[in-house]
């Protein structure tokens, strides 16, 4: 494997509600993550992280609140993210396939179901496993050197 030097690791613990997720994303992407990351990578990382966290708030912690631990490692090649929660497991122990609905007419336009599609489209090495009472999700966002 090519060298993937870690230039900074950040860990935050977030309560499972939408406002806390917003505050954490703002803190991570406005102050905690180094600014030298390409804009395209920052955007992709924030989109994927937001969808993963919102999913945990809405589904894993649907019945009772809890905490979410996020560890972001910024490397020369992008961002690696590990998310741990203590909520309900994924249905069937698997990540949703995240297919994009085909829309035809105005009244049929989907108002949801974009989250896993965005996660799967923008991330690499997406991995989920259940360990005891914990859900562990990890992914990578690769910096495209040729993007700019």
């Amino acid at each position: 494997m090519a060298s993937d030097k870690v230039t900074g690791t950040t860990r935050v613990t977030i309560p499972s509600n939408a406002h806390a997720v917003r505050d954490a994303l703002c803190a991570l992407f406005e102050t905690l993550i180094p600014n030298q990351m390409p804009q395209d990578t920052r955007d992709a990382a924030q989109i994927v992280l937001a969808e993963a966290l919102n999913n945990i708030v809405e589904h894993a912690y649907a019945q009772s609140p809890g905490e979410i631990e996020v560890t972001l490692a910024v490397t020369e090649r992008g961002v690696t993210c590990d998310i741990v929660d203590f909520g309900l497991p994924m249905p069937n122990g698997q990540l949703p396939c995240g297919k994009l609905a085909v829309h035809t007419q105005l009244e049929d336009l989907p108002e949801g179901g974009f989250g896993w599609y965005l996660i799967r489209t923008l991330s690499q090495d997406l991995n989920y496993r259940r360990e005891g009472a914990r859900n562990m999700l990890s992914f990578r966002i690769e910096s495209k050197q040729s993007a700019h």
Partner: protein
Amino acid sequence: MKMASIPHPELLIVQVNETRIDAAGAINFKERMRELTQDNGKRVILDLSGVTFIDSSGLGAVVAVRKSLGPDRPLELAGLTSAVEKVFRLTRMDSVFPIHTCVPVGQSDGV
């Protein structure tokens, strides 16, 4: 959610004066849009130039507004920043909404 409507002879511009349309604000966004557009039947241009981030809940809210305005009343988007443009493009919603690079009439003052 801080939003403002600016009526013009041919259209209604709705400015979003928040940096995010996300899961924490999606319901409020839909309510504000309904309030701001209900007294005016003109086409609507949603000025998103101040919005730096939208998630799938925010996208769903914009789609819901599009549907509630009905087929005869266009909803157009203007001033998409990079992350917002990415979400609309990847979900192919850029084919549903006419998208302007900037608000197509004279800029108005922020509220």
